[in-house]
């Protein structure tokens, strides 16, 4: 089942002087259950804007985004119930403890006090956060914060995960924890959209890769098909090949 359907999505950033910018332009892709879709591209390609549209933070100017069968523009609340959103820049409430934060977000998802407490305790055990979850978030290290963030994104056990640079700035150990978590969630049948600049991560994790450039999808496919089309082995070489070719040809989009 297609859990995420982006259908001709476009986002125009308006300017009063009339020189509007098309940050995302006619983007279409689908992500099924238990699949990881890698959204790659250089800075300013439109990755973050796409993820924001999918998660209901931004309204698409054109096209539709359907998540778990709900149109973001029509049923934003239902979409948000099905969604876990995680970025490297997501802040935490500095004056709440990790556990308080998890319970808060669980209750925002409609869980009662008992259910939210049980869910928080489960995630604390699962992500080995027992040592620091009683600290206020302001006193945690970057890696600890990111683990709390992961737990926050999973607090309602959503079927879709949207992740924007989740490993940015993390040390090797924390990085490993995040990658393992992504694989585990994929194995649990979740549909995952992953945007990253670390191409080796994308190479090892993603079932399908979409390359964005200037707001357009210039290439899409699994690693094998991209290798065949570009005659390159490593994803970084494939990336450079496609990005350099894109302004003139745009030929790799399938």
């Amino acid at each position: 089942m297609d859990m995420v359907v982006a259908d001709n999505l476009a986002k125009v950033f308006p300017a009063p002087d009339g020189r509007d910018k098309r940050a995302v332009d006619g983007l279409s892709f689908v992500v099924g259950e238990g699949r990881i879709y890698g959204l790659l591209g250089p800075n300013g390609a439109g990755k973050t804007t796409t993820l924001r549209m999918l998660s209901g933070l931004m309204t698409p100017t054109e096209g539709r985004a359907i998540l778990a069968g709900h149109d973001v523009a029509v049923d934003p609340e239902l979409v948000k119930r099905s969604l876990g959103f995680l970025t490297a820049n997501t802040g935490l409430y500095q004056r709440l403890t990790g556990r308080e934060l998890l319970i808060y977000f669980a209750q925002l998802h409609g869980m009662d006090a008992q259910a939210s407490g049980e869910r928080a305790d489960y995630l604390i055990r699962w992500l080995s956060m027992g040592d620091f979850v009683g600290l206020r978030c302001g006193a945690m290290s970057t890696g600890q914060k990111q683990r709390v963030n992961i737990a926050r994104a999973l607090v309602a056990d959503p079927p879709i995960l949207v992740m924007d640079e989740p490993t940015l700035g993390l040390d090797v150990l924390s990085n490993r924890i995040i990658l393992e978590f992504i694989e585990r969630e994929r194995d649990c049948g979740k549909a995952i959209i992953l945007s990253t600049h670390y191409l080796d991560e994308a190479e090892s994790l993603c079932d399908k890769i979409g390359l964005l450039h200037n707001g357009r999808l210039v290439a899409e496919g699994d690693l094998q098909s991209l290798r065949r089309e570009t005659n390159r082995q490593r994803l970084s070489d494939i990336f450079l090949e496609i990005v350099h070719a894109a302004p003139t040809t745009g030929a790799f989009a399938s």
Partner: protein
Amino acid sequence: MILRRRVQTIYKKELIDILRDRRTLIAMIVVPIVLYPLLMLGSVQAVSFQGDTLEREKFLVGVVSDAHWELLERLIRSDAQRLEQARQESAEDPEDGDGPVGLVDLAESPSPYPDRQALEQAVKDREVQVGVIFEHEELRNGFNTRNPVTILADREEVRSANAAGRLRRMIGRTGERIIERRLTDLDLPPEFVTPFSIAFVNLSARSSILGQILPLILILMTITGAIYPAIDLTAGERERGTLESLMVSPVPVFELIVGKFLVVTTVAIMGATLNLASVTATMWFGGFDVIVADTEGGLPIGKMVIILLCLVPFAVLMSAIMIAVCSYARTFKEAQNYVTPVIMAVLIPGGIAAMPAARLDGVMLVIPVGNMVLFAREMLLGAPVSWWQMATVLVSTSLYAAAAVSIAATVFGRESVVFADAGSLRTSFSRRLIKPSRRPTITLSLLFVAFLFPTWFFIQASLAPGPGEDAQALLAATAWLMPLMFVALPVVVLFYWRISLTETLSLRMPRRWHLVAGLLIGLSAWVPAHELNVLQSYVLGPPASLAQSAELLGETLSRMHPAKVLLIIAIIPAVCEELLFRGLLLSGLGTSSRKYTAIIVSAVVFGVFHFLLPKFAVTVALGLVLGYLCWQSRSIVPGMLAHALHNGVAAMSVLLPKWSNGLGIPADLGWSHFPPQVIVGGLALFVAGCLLARIKASPHSDQQ
């Protein structure tokens, strides 16, 4: 009000979060409990110390000749002797505070100055504190002579002003003694020169300082309490990077904002309460209660309670304004920049209202902030405040607060505010970039009504007929201003925001049965309306103001052509009020709230806009029926028909009393029930109309 669970969750979390913040605690607890008492005690001690020092301090008196100084010294010594004598006789110090020795040993003089000009310069240069010039070098004591004395002083310089005051009092005392002696010589009583004996009794219960300054302090306390949490919970959320995770939670923005607004209100009230308690305690234990005590003496604790009660609606309004303003900001610093002009804007009406001449009537009843300051002041001073005044102030304040919260809900989390690359706030208001929509948001509707409320109130108040005048000017102005403000202005707003006029104003042809429903309701609503008024009069007594206004209106209408009466009383209000209340307002409310909530709120606002407390219940009831009719029929027309007929029947009953006599209604009915046959017949038609209105025109799924 039962808060939704998610709002409670947000409220609880935000309150814990904000109360754990050191800056909040310092602003809310440390400042009032430690700093204010210290400042107050310190400043009072400093003033007292300065006063004592001045009284004991020697001062230099400049003169233009040795003879002038000798004369002055003689006067000082003579005054001191008399003061000492008086003290011994009465065993008390004289009341003027100059002590038994007067200015002896306090006033000294340097070498005389050559002329007045040099002496003036010496006072300006502060070589001497005061200059004294006698016209005559000797004291002249004849009945036809005077002894002009010029005192030169610098009033801006405290020592100079003090010395001049003491010298003036001393010379005044000496003059009084001379008069006394002359009267004794002539064997005349003191009454000879004082034909009047004036006794001034102050009957005001007010304390001079309390009533004037406390409402203003109230403003500052509440604003201070609201600023920091408002910034922290809005702009702070974005700056810390927590806004994205909050916005992807399945919670409507309105609930988020309501939860945050309630926290800001709570903190503002807590902070202001602590401030007030601290000030009260400082005055009590510091012995400063004299400066705020009322005429009965003692600290007015009861009045402090009144202030606290006034503080709640005030805190609600200020918190709503602060949340709305701070929601526009992306950073703490930006929010602080926005808040400063708002504080200034709030202080202006607050300051005007604090002026002694300001009164709680007319347009002041609906001036945001100003009305609350005046209300608090009148309550403090024990001035009579009617239920009508209280209701107007509280309802208008609530309306402004609701509009501000709605603005916050629209702005908070908006793309252009959250993400710098999604354009500026300016782009949100550019018509080219506004997407066409079917109905206005609740914010736009409430904002328009909140703007219209004081404006319409001002127009009505300024045109209200004075004693001996008829209501013709009011009716004429209403006839052309109502279409302008209730119809033309909303149309312009809807056009600018590219909102469908047809959808918003329900400009559709209705089904036949809805027209029949409107007809039945319009023809019969006067019966339940009158009966409701009668029932209300059992509780509140016969409304004299309503009877007076009805009488005045009747007199005016009787001099007008019936067609003109129907146009002004029935058709224009029906069309205009329906388009505003059941069009713009109900549509806007319907986009974010449930059917009956939207109908009830629009009906209450409709009632409030009639500005007459005794008519409130009836207009709200009529608003409920008309709102229901419009919602069910999805057309504005049946409501307009019912409204016009209802108003028309009321006008005709005034113009053609025989018409009502024909139904067996006595001419002098007053506040009694209608005859049973009229009640039964009227209610039957009314209920039939309401039942017909129950039929739905088409599914309202898009409005639910």
